[in-house]
């Protein structure tokens, strides 16, 4: 068991280096010049320009910069934003709560609706509910997420406002104003959750269907267990395993910056920040945020892997058959 965890941790390391290295490498080819961008319209005197480049270590070769970056990382220092001059860690502290709340809300929706719809579709197979569920999930999976967001904005923010004479509507932009913060996250959470929930429902359904055809389910029926007992005790326990893994990985994906959703709804979260740092060639912010995000994602993946071992005894205890 601990071997399993240890092995997973060990695999984490090369991936981490691989990703950060790749990130570094790609950005050194970036044609943008962050210093010039910060200066804006003003033309910097060459000395100042060089000094600023030196300050940010931009005059060193890329492998040197990488080494410096890793060194600083080990000390917990993620650098300073070129565009704003703020500490990256401070920026991160400001923005990640929004992303976390957004992802949290989305995951909750995904768990509840994804599993429920999947179960209904599987149990009431070939009925109108199943067809409806499959149709809905197919459409959701084919939707551009940002477009869904905009449509929700229109319907709940604009149309509803007009229809109720301005009385009832949901906010569609930013995170502050008339309502408490969480209200601003309602529509974005739904948007973020939508596609994932559709997938989760499908996985739940197909897993349940596959499991119900298994021999041990037949054995359970042969023992005289009631249909609902067979479903909840035997089928669900097996079918949920891949579903839990799937949802867990989804959480990781959501935390890694829901760029599109945050863009549409103007949520100043992690994804939004990273996106803008790309456009502004603000390397320290980019690297810093991506690094932290990577940690989060890989950490969640690790937890998912470990939970998989907990749920499936075949992984927990390797085969130890002996007559």
């Amino acid at each position, binding site marked *: 068991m601990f071997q399993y965890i240890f092995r997973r941790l060990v695999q984490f390391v090369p991936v981490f280096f691989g*990703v950060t290295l790749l990130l570094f490498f*790609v950005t050194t080819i970036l044609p943008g010049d962050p210093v010039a961008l910060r200066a804006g319209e003003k033309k910097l005197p060459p000395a100042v320009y060089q000094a600023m480049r030196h300050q940010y270590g931009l005059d060193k070769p890329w492998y040197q910069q990488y080494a410096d970056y890793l060194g600083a990382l080990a000390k917990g220092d993620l650098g300073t934003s070129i565009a704003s001059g703020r500490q990256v860690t401070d920026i991160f502290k400001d923005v990640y709560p929004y992303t976390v709340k957004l992802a949290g809300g989305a995951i909750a929706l995904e768990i509840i609706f994804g599993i429920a719809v999947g179960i209904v579709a599987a149990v009431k197979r070939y009925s109108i509910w199943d067809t409806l569920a*499959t149709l809905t999930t197919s459409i959701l999976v084919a939707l*551009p997420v940002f477009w869904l967001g*905009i449509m929700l904005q229109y319907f709940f923010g604009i149309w509803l406002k007009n229809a109720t004479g301005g009385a009832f509507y949901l906010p569609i932009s930013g995170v502050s104003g008339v309502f408490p913060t969480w209200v601003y996250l309602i529509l974005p959470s739904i948007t973020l959750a939508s596609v994932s929930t559709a997938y989760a429902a499908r996985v739940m359904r197909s897993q349940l269907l596959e499991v119900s055809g298994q021999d041990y389910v037949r054995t359970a029926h042969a023992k005289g267990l009631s249909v609902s007992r067979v479903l909840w005790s035997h089928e669900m326990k097996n079918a949920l395993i891949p579903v839990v893994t799937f949802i867990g990985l989804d959480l990781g994906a959501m935390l890694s910056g829901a*760029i599109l959703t945050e863009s549409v709804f103007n949520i100043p979260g992690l994804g939004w920040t990273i996106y803008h740092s790309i456009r502004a060639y603000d390397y320290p912010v980019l690297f810093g945020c991506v690094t932290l995000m990577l940690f989060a994602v890989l950490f969640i993946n690790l937890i998912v892997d470990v939970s998989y071992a907990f749920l499936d005894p075949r992984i927990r205890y390797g085969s130890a058959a002996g007559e």
Partner: protein
Amino acid sequence: MSNEMDALQGAANHGVKDPRTGLPATPPSGPDVKGEASGRNRTLMGDAWYRLSRNKLALVALAWLMIITLAAISASLWVPRIYGDPVAIDTATVATGALQSPSVAHPMGTDDLGRDMLSRIVYGARASLSVGFMAVFVSVVIGLILGSLSGFYTGWPDALIMRIADVFLAFPYLLFALLLLSVVPKEYRGGIMPVVLTIGVLGWPSIARVFRSSILSVKENDYVDAARALGASDLRLMTRHIMPNAVAPIVVYSTMSIGSAILTEAALSYLGLGILPPTPSWGRMISDGQQYLTSNPGLVLWPGLAILTTVLAFTLLGDGVRDALDVKMKD
């Protein structure tokens, strides 16, 4: 479990194998007891086509895709004549014809620069479909090469390639795409090729993995050893024995991938880094139209529906293909 129960159980529970897509393309059909006894001679491909043709949903999807493709290819012939140029900006029309509601002359209305929406949508199809097909093509080529190297020559090439694939997969998808697109030099920005290459390069790990596992599972089979014992060379083994088996999952995956490639392109264009004007692109049209949401939601609605129906068609087609090839994939 005896064979009869297997077949009958299959009849009662026509389950689906791929967890990510759970669409039941066909209601349960009986056990395949006709087989040899009735003497119906079906080849493997013929069998697949037959099953596909019975899947109404997939046929509708295929029909829709062919309509879109034909319209897109032939667009320059008929669109500008009927509905006006989707790209050019004519100051006269801007003044008079901007933001019109749907009418006979303009079934989807006009955009903020007076251009007909319908023609822009049709032209947008060119961009999306080209990106979709070409990007997947790139992924498949790279994926096949690396996947076969990985699967065939186990040992350090396999480990290395799979590690690299892991790194690619660990990187958040959209982020990676945005980064790669930022690297594009100025003169190529906003064109189709950078987007194609980006999505293509990001897509190879999955294809490589699928192909590699096909190879590995086929390698296990005894008939490969038998062929080798008969003196078959590696290349011959690959083409004659391994490829036919590996083809099925790749075909299915590729069809689905075209849909997701189109979604990615739309997202990238929406964020301003994908396909840029003057080339019409559905994603860009959505971001352009967002500011007029209150007054003319159609500017956002139509491009979105276009994306939705196209991707949905690819998904349904992919599901149908997967179910049609199901018997082979079971092996």
